C-alpha cells in the first residue's frame, strides 16, 4: 500500500497525484500503474494511469471522466492508495541520430511528459506537440517547457495555434532534413491520424494505447485490441506502447 503525498490541480478537472509506497517503482515512460483508493465496492476495479514521474517521486496525472477518477481527484495527502505496477512496455528511447517528436492529445501528455524529461536527462531534447480542445485542457504545458520545445494547438484557438495537432506534425515531418521518431498518446482518432502521417513518410512511430482493464497484468484477457494482422494484442502486457504499424493497417 502506498500513501498520497501531494495533490495538485493543474486545471479544473485534472489532478496531479504524488504518492509513495514501500519501495520505489522505478518505472519508465509509457509504463503504467493500476491504482485504487480505499472506497469500498464502488468502483471495485483499479484504474490505469501512465506514470508522469517515477523514482524518487511517483506521480500520475488524472483527468476526471467518471466515478473512479472523480474519487481519485478527491484524495488528500496521507490517504491510502493501492498501486499495482509499474506494468507494461514503455517507450523505446530514441537513437542518438533520431530527433524525437512527441504528439500529445489531452491527458495523453502524461507519459510523454515523463518521456520528454527522460530524453532531456539522456542529453536529447524533444519537440512536444500538444493538442487540446482549449486553454483549460493543457495541464503540464508550462512545466514541460522547461526541458522540451513546446507547440500547443487548441481547437478553439484559446491557446497556441488554432487547429489540430496533426497540422504542425505534418509540417515537421515534411522537413526531411533531419531524421525523426514520433511518440504519441491521446484519443484514438488522433493516434490513427498521427500513425498515418508517419507511415506516409516512413517515420518510426510509437503509440501508447488505452483499453478498459481489470488486472493490468496480462491475466484477465480483458484489454484486447484488434491489431493490424487481425489478431488481438493485450494493452497491459503487449503494450501499452506499440509500434504504430503493429496496430494500424497502412
Amino acid at each position, binding site marked *: 500500500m502506498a500513501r498520497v503525498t501531494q495533490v495538485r490541480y493543474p486545471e479544473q478537472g485534472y489532478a496531479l497525484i504524488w504518492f509513495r509506497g514501500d519501495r520505489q517503482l522505478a518505472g519508465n515512460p509509457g509504463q503504467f500503474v*493500476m491504482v*485504487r483508493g480505499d472506497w469500498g*465496492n*464502488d*468502483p*471495485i*476495479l*483499479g484504474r490505469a494511469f501512465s506514470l508522469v514521474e517515477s523514482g524518487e517521486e511517483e506521480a500520475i496525472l488524472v483527468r476526471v471522466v467518471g466515478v473512479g477518477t472523480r474519487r481519485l481527484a478527491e484524495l488528500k495527502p496521507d490517504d491510502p492508495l*493501492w498501486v*499495482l505496477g509499474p506494468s507494461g512496455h514503455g517507450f523505446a528511447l530514441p537513437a542518438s541520430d533520431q530527433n524525437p517528436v512527441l504528439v500529445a492529445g489531452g491527458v495523453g501528455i502524461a507519459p510523454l511528459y515523463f518521456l520528454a524529461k527522460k530524453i532531456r536527462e539522456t542529453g536529447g531534447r524533444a519537440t512536444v506537440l500538444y493538442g487540446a480542445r482549449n486553454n483549460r485542457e493543457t495541464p503540464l504545458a508550462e512545466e514541460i517547457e522547461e526541458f522540451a520545445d513546446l507547440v500547443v494547438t487548441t481547437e478553439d484557438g484559446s491557446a497556441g495555434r488554432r487547429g489540430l495537432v496533426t497540422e504542425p506534425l505534418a509540417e515537421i515531418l515534411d522537413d526531411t532534413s533531419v531524421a525523426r521518431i514520433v511518440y504519441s498518446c491521446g484519443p484514438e482518432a488522433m493516434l490513427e491520424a498521427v500513425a498515418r502521417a508517419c507511415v506516409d513518410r516512413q517515420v518510426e512511430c510509437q503509440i501508447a494505447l488505452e*483499453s*478498459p*482493464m*481489470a*488486472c*493490468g*497484468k*496480462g*491475466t*484477465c*484477457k*480483458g*484489454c*484486447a*485490441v*484488434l491489431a493490424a494482422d487481425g*489478431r*488481438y494484442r493485450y494493452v497491459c502486457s503487449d503494450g501499452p506502447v506499440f509500434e504504430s504499424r503493429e496496430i494500424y493497417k497502412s
Partner: protein
Amino acid sequence: MAVRLGPLELKNPIMVASGTFGYGVEYADVMDISAIGAISVKGISLEPRAGNPPPRICETPAGMINAIGLANIGYDAFVQTTLPRLRELGATVVVNLYGTSADEFAELAERFDSQEGIAALEVNISCPNVKAGGIHFGVRPEPAAAVTRAVRERTGLPVIVKLSPEAVNIAEVAKAAREAGADALSLINTIRGMSIDVETRRPRLGSVMGGMSGPAIRPLAVRLVYEVHKAVDVPLIGIGGISCLRDVLEFMMAGATAVQIGTANYTNPRTSLEILSDFEKYCLERGVTPAELVGTVKTN
C-alpha cells in the same frame, strides 16, 4: 487448515477462481503462489482460442461484466510450458476445462489424466461467454450429467463440476452432476448481464452480453450454495464476490467446504493469501477447524 473435498485434499480452503488469476505463474514474482489452497487456472480448451471482440470488460455497480470468450493458450502450450513451471513453483493446480461438446471435455480430461502436478479438474459447464457449449450444459440436469460422465470415465483425477446460476433448478443440476460422478461442485460462475453506453448507444461489451461477477452477485451465490448444500450431499466450493474473511465465513456457513476468490484478485492479487492469514487467525482464536464451519448457518 486442511480441508477435504472427497478425494481432493487441500492444504487450506482458500482457492483462486478460474480466469481471475491467469495461469498463476504471472504472479510468482509478487507472492508465494504455492501457499494458495489451489489455483484454478484460466479455462483450457484443446486448441488455443483468441477470445471475443473487444471491449471485453466493463464495470458495473459493485461488480463487473466480462465477455472474454475463454481466450486461452490451448492444451499443448499449457502442458508444455505452463504446467512444468507451476510444478516448479509448488502450486496446487486445478485445471479448468472448456469444451464445446461432451467429447471435447472427455478428450481434455483424458489428456490431463496423464499429466503430473494436477490436483483436480474443474469442468466449466457454465461459461456464459461462448456460443457453443458453455452455459448450455449447465442449465439443465441431463447435459450436465452427460458432460460429467464423459469426463469421469476418462480420468482418475478428482472431478469438480462448476455450476451456473442460470440453471433452471440448480439443485437438480447438482444432483445430476453428483450422480454422474462429480467429486465436488463449485458455484457460482457468472450470470449474464448487459450494459449500454448511452452516448454511443452501443453495448459496453463487444459481444453485447457478458458475465457478472464481484460483490454485486454475492447474495445470489450464497443463496445458491445454501440451496445446493441442503439438497445434495456433495462437497461444495463457494464462489462469488468474495473479498474478505467475512465473505469466506459466510460461504462456509452456507455450506461451502472451500471457496474461490475471483474478481477481488484484480485489485489485489494477494487477496487470497491475506484472507488465508485472517482465516487462520479466526480458526485459532475460536478454536474451530475449517470443516466445523461448513453449513453451520442456523435457519430454524
